[in-house]
């Protein structure tokens, strides 16, 4: 099974139409990866779908970087009892 980081990079690449190998944890979704307002919403929605979780809207949208998303989603998965890494 792919790691959380790999899955987040794949989703981010798909939504923002990027190469997953170019995405790094320190990248800011808006400033570095060019996410526009509606794409931020799409990213949160796609992360929810990918991991089968439900995120609190304001908290999820406050996450700015790929690394921040990895930590945030790992926490949410743990809270919601979702298995993430083999």
């Amino acid at each position, binding site marked *: 099974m792919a790691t959380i980081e790999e899955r987040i990079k794949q989703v981010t690449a798909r939504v923002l139409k990027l190469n997953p190998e170019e995405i790094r944890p320190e990248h800011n979704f808006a400033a570095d990866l060019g996410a526009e*307002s*509606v794409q931020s*919403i*799409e990213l*949160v*929605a796609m992360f*929810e779908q990918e991991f089968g979780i439900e*995120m609190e809207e304001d908290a*999820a949208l406050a996450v700015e970087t790929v690394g921040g998303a990895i930590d945030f989603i790992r926490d949410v998965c743990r809270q919601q009892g979702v298995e993430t890494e083999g």
Partner: protein
Amino acid sequence: MNTERKSHTLVDADRPNLLEDRFPHALPPLIRLTGPVVETIDGKPAQFDVSDVKKRDIVITDTTFRDGQQSRPPYTIDQMVHIYDLLAKLGGPNGVIRQTEFFLYTKNDRETLRRCRELGHTYPECTGWIRAVKGDFRLVKEAGLRETGMLTSCSDYHIFHKLKFPSRKACMDSYCDVVKAAFDAGVRPRCHLEDITRSDIEGFVLPFIDRLMELSSAVPDELSVKVRLCDTMGFGLSYPGAELPRSIPKLIYKMNRECGVPSDRLEWHGHNDFHKVHINGGTAWLYGCNAVNTTLFGFGERTGNPPLEGAVMEYIALKGGLCGINTTVITELADYMRSIGLPIPDNYPFAGKAFNTTSAGIHAGGLRQDERIYNIFDTTTLLGRPPRVAITDKSGADGVAHWLNEFFGLKGDDRINKIRVHELARWVIDQYDVQGRLTSISDQELETKAKELYPDLWAKCKAGRN
């Protein structure tokens, strides 16, 4: 005509004069009248003190269940009882909506009337509607009604071509016999002068009214004949200088002053064939009819009748206050009518889904700065309808979520957040970024897309309503 030129000096100001004494925003804009108004009748000036309307006991009467039902499939009994209940709530304890009329011919008609009266509302008073047939008074008596409308058509189109009377005299005698039968039954007759705006006023109508007044003089006041002026084909005119039989001011003058029918026994009933229905009703109020007959949302025969909710707003504007009216019930009634399959156009005043929605970005900007710039009055308080902005590329996911929540009527915890609307938000953005669209997106387009993207929500909130 006075052609003397007059110069006008700018009154400079560093603070706005918003004319709030006339545009209070908490109420519909007030109608302030100065009199007298002069109309030339039979070659002589006749004065009307139109400002008197503020003091007179003007009222709204309703014919949603009679004329209103002539333009649509019948309401069920439960629907009519509910609508009647809401009419009482809307008109308030002072009886601004004073009366409503019912058919009496079928078992369902009579059951509806019984159940409406069982609610115990003082207003609107329930009255009947029958043909000008003596035997029909039995129905009125059995229903326990004090008043009934009866057809007394007065144009020669009706007298000769529809009712097949051999002469005007035979027609008048027949009508008067029925009026006497009403008196004998202890029921107040309300004579509906059908097609009056296409009648021979001097040759038939006024002599008939004289007879009615004479008959009324022999009975107690509470039985005296009321007169409904029925503009059956919408030919009535409010314009100064218009001739009889189409002139509303002149018609009312003849009834009121030449025949002596007091204002509280005069009622106007209009039709909208020439887009004049609301203003003609208001004109009748100003010139001396105390009652204007209306239907909810104007539903009525062919093009419809004066819209009741329009008359309510006119009443408030003329009187300068709510007078016990609960205007938010207009929205409740509109929602109910839509729920039972009666279409109300989106741009329909006071009740359409988009009546206070602005599409232009520049208007939306104005609304954001000060609602009063582009909202006709405080629609949030008076109708429970905040002003809205149509969706464009500038609306963002927040705007799209707001639109969807309003559209599905979701409240509290049921409201959906913007994460859940990402597909619709994407579709909106693509309309502009990909398709090159330059116009705002209509509610109809959004509805279609919402149905496609959110079938579960649609099934839960909209099934059976659209």
